[in-house]
């Protein structure tokens, strides 16, 4: 039925997204490998990719809750900053990027 087709569609989407995350993870690991003079095993790249993919679920749900708490249905930069609150350096970095975006939006 159409429910089964919907489930299949979702599975296909998940596969494509996993592959996209894996590709980008590979690129970023390559950068770090060059910086630090190390080699990452394939399994390591796959593991980091999988962890990142799964972490997106927590991020998505938190962001949705933050927006909802502010009585919005659209997630904004403010919600992302809340997400980055646990590490001072991360929060500083994200706030900086947010300010850069805000000033380029005003041009």
């Amino acid at each position, binding site marked *: 039925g159409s429910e089964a087709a919907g489930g299949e569609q979702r599975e296909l989407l998940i596969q494509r997204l996993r592959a996209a995350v894996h590709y980008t993870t590979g690129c970023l690991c390559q950068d770090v490998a060059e910086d630090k003079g*190390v080699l*990452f095993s394939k399994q390591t790249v796959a593991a980091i990719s999988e962890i990142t993919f799964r972490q997106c679920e927590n991020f998505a749900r938190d962001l949705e809750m933050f927006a909802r708490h502010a009585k919005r249905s659209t997630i904004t930069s403010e919600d992302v900053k809340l997400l980055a609150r646990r590490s001072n350096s991360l929060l500083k970095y994200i706030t900086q990027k947010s300010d850069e975006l805000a000033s380029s939006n005003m041009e």
Partner: protein
Amino acid sequence: MEEREGGFRKETVERLLRLHFRDGRTRVNGDALLLMAELLKVFVREAAARAARQAQAEDLEKVDIEHVEKVLPQLLLDF
């Protein structure tokens, strides 16, 4: 802010997040998508860098899964 090489595409980030929303009306604005792309990039780079440092602390040049496992708890606490 440009999308840099070796980063997450805006479209990918949008789909990754939307996959897990509970409310069909939830959207993400453009700036938030760009910021999330940056955050995810930092997440991956941190995971990789910390695992690398762990391997190096063990006098190894090759980073393996056990190095990721060792740094994972603190990584998740920091995010």
